[in-house]
């Protein structure tokens, strides 16, 4: 699986996660899958809705009503939800155990490491079918 983002999307994500720092920031990818390439057509930037604001430096939540709204937007435009992104403030762009416990198979999970307020590392992950681990996938940024 390859996640293909446009430079404009990357710039939007960068602004969103740097603005959110030191809290985690998150969002939803809408687009289409063609021959294993997840082509992002549209982003939904989402407020981190993890209940305890103090824990938002290391936790994020996209509540179901956001996912449902995104799903409806996707269906109306002939797209689908391809995956999600979130930031790891002052932490590597690798999934934590907590990420794994709460992840769904198939979706692309982009993690952006934000160090001292700057987005420095971008990595895409997919949960294995048996939920035992994440596998790193390819991020492609196109004009």
């Amino acid at each position, binding site marked *: 699986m390859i996640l293909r983002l446009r430079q404009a999307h990357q710039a939007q994500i960068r602004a969103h996660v740097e603005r959110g720092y030191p809290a985690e920031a998150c969002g939803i990818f809408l687009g289409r899958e063609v021959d294993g390439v997840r082509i992002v057509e549209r982003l939904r930037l989402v407020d981190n809705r993890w209940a305890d604001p103090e824990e938002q430096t290391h936790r994020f939540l996209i*509540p*179901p009503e956001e996912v*449902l709204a995104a799903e409806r937007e996707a269906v109306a435009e002939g797209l689908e939800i391809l995956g999600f992104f979130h930031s790891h403030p002052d932490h590597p762009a690798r999934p934590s155990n907590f990420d794994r416990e*709460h992840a769904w198979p198939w979706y692309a999970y982009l993690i952006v490491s934000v160090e001292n307020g700057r987005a420095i590392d971008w990595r895409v992950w997919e949960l294995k079918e048996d939920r035992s681990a994440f596998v790193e996938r390819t991020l492609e940024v196109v004009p």
Partner: protein
Amino acid sequence: MAVQILIPTPLRVYTRGEKVVTVEAGTVGEALRALTERFPELRRHLFNEEGRLRSFVNLYLGDEDVRYLQGEETPISDGQTLSIVPSIAGGGRWSSGRWITRR
């Protein structure tokens, strides 16, 4: 009652690619039972070992979260749509009040 159940993309592999599954059911619980009888592999993704709906699996009848209705006892009218909706959570590593470095 005929109820349409919308299947999110990650679970379609267990419904032979079907995005919408129509079942006969009078309540949300009956709809879930009919769905998982037809596609038994779905069960472990929707329910935990105690048979309860997993906490990050949500069910919406129309626009309403069934947790705020009558849960699995919620009655379904003919033609209503039941959506299985993931909530998405995660985050960095934090344990016992301190960061665990991973490198």
